[in-house]
């Protein structure tokens, strides 16, 4: 197991970063968030040309047969760009849920022709996978019920509903987007009204969410890195009292501490990507969630007034960071899991 980036990963990173810089820098994301947050043209290019949609899908099923480490690098870049594409929801969570059954839908997902989403609340966790959901299947195999806070549902062609340990593919559900804290990854309430469904196979939902949580740590790393880099650039430029703001020692020390947090977030993200064990995932999530929020909060503060304006994209990162802190388990949920995983028992 290595915590470094491979050459292949660096090439993948460069491709994704280049495309995002070209097509969808944060200022462009900001312009579209209120009308049509997802950039599906961009997604088509990312999925089809760079091939990110099929990264986790075996070659024989039409994918690239890559590992979580490659997907993690893509997520770092998508986090750096708060990129409005359904990679995490379709190419990680939904894909991972379909993999055990080697479902034919995987081929379509790999090509980017279709997009899927898991009908699970983004606020659910490996420890409480059912949070926000009330689904049932009747004798005729029709799914009923609703799930709140589903990410990626509004741009999904297929919804994957986990019910009682089985996974069902559904096309006729209604996803109603609600005003969301994270403008670049809005959540929807998904309603199934006796919708006919196809049973895909068994589903270890907690395992799927754990896998996703581990990779979310890489996205959070990307968010934190953008915030740190952008703030560094700003405080080097911005003058007050005839000095760059970044020459003031209190600011320098805060940024040094923040950098140190990000350095450790990188190690944690790499560890969870290479080894998506329960411990590594819980460590990465509990650390990186906090670092992303802290980095975004420091970015807003150190941008001063401009950081409070809608016109500067830093708020997109703050909102992404704060929503991601809740997504797939809060830091507290993951620390609680560690108590038994690493034998740090609580009071008796």
């Amino acid at each position, binding site marked *: 197991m290595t915590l470094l980036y491979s050459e292949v990963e660096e090439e993948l990173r460069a491709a994704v970063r280049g495309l995002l810089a070209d097509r969808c820098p944060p200022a462009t994301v900001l312009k579209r968030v*209120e009308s049509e947050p997802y950039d599906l043209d961009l997604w088509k290019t990312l999925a089809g040309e760079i091939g990110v949609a099929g990264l986790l899908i075996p070659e024989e099923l039409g994918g690239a047969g890559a590992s979580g480490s490659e997907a993690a690098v893509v997520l770092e870049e998508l986090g750096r760009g708060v990129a409005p594409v359904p990679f995490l929801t379709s190419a990680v969570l939904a894909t991972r849920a379909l993999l055990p059954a080697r479902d034919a839908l995987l081929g379509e997902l790999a090509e980017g022709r279709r997009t899927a989403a898991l009908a699970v609340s*983004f*606020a659910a966790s490996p420890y409480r996978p059912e*949070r926000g959901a009330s689904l049932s299947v009747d004798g005729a195999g029709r799914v009923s019920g609703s799930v709140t*806070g589903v990410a990626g549902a509004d741009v999904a062609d297929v919804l994957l509903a986990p019910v009682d340990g089985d996974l069902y593919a559904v096309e006729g559900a209604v996803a109603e987007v*609600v*005003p*969301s*804290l*994270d*403008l670049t990854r809005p*959540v929807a309430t998904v309603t199934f009204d006796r919708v006919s469904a196809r049973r895909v196979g068994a589903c270890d939902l907690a395992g799927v969410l754990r896998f996703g949580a581990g990779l979310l740590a890489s996205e959070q790393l990307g968010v934190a890195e953008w915030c740190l880099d952008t703030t560094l650039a700003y405080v080097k430029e911005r*003058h*007050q*009292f*005839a*000095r760059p703001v970044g020459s*003031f020692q*209190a*600011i320098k020390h805060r940024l040094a501490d923040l950098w140190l947090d990000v350095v450790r977030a990188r190690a944690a993200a790499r560890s969870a990507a290479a080894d998506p064990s329960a411990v590594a995932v819980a460590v990465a999530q509990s650390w990186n969630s906090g670092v992303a*929020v802290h980095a975004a*909060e420091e970015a*807003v*503060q150190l941008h*001063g*007034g*401009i*950081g*409070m*304006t*809608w*016109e500067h994209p830093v*708020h997109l990162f*703050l*909102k992404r960071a*704060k*929503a991601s*802190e*809740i*997504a797939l388990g*809060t*830091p*507290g*949920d993951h*620390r*609680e899991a560690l108590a038994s995983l690493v034998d740090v028992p*609580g009071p008796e």
Partner: protein
Amino acid sequence: MNEAEIEERVAAFLGEHDPSGDRLEFLRARYDAGLAWVWFPEGHGGLGAPRELQQVVERALAHTPQINGGIQGIGLGMAAPTILTFGTEEQKRRFLRPLWTGEEIWCQLFSEPGAGSDLATLATRAVRDGDEWVIDGQKVWTSGAHHSRWAILVTRTDPDVPKHRGMTYFVCDMHAPGVEVRPLRQITGEAEFNEVFLTGVRLPDELRLGAVGDGWRVAQTTLMNERVAIGGAPTRRGGGMVASVLDAWREHPELRSHDLHQRLLSLWVEAEVTRLSGARLREQLAAGEPGPEGSGMKLSFAKLNQALTGFDVEFLRDLGYDDWTFRRSENVDFYGRGPGYRYLRAKGNSIEGGTSEILRNIISERVLGLPSEPRIDKDVPWKDLPR
């Protein structure tokens, strides 16, 4: 002038003016009777009385028509004391009465995109042209600009001297050609503030407040009146921002965890000791012995509000938001909005009215007596400053 005399005046005034009649007429009469702000001089809405006697008037007139402390806030709190200190008799006569009655609303044109914490570096130019001044520049974070009749404005009149010396202070006519007000949208979605663009705005020299080049000193008077104790209102134990978190906590036992519980207890304690500090500060003020503790209250409340609102969003696991609509809002309404709004709006608490960084500088130098950092901007002509 003592309490009894004030009460007598109020009684006499009420004998002559019917509070249930025309509101504006009543307020004008109150001003003319010297019962607007009793510590102001006679003839300008006051009686030259000690400031603490104002509460006698307020008590006695509590049932009568009131001015609007919200929308008139900048006029009453910042413009009025500045006009009183630096205005000519003519300026005081012209501006103070409609300012107090609320017939004319005021706003403040100080901050600029390039001059935030370092206000003295501001770049809005005022160039003399005969009996007039021509103003060009951009101001920002101006609340109420869109319904203001006047503004207090600081400008750069001499770029060739060090920054603190080349400024001049004006009353700006917000109806003058060349004044453009644009709402400034915040990260919460709404616009509490404005940007104000000044393009070739012509102001007669009679609108100058204080001497040419003396703008920094005039502005200090304004700012000293701004830094009133923020969060200084008395709250009960467990009140304020912690109350809305506690309400949610008590309503949702199913969302609690030991992690959140321990953090909430710590925040509760921090809120309580901060509340006690505020209470102690008010006792000191009442005893006429204001301590230096006031400088820290805003800093404490900003940190606490940010921690509490961040906690709230996490506790509720709330991925939604109530309303992103871009619209003007006159007031901050923390409690009428959702947790996401409170979280985002509270981020401004450590920026508006002096950043927490600047407040720490002030505390360390003025309260703790620590030496200032080496300054490189004191003796350099403004135009040569690195930017």
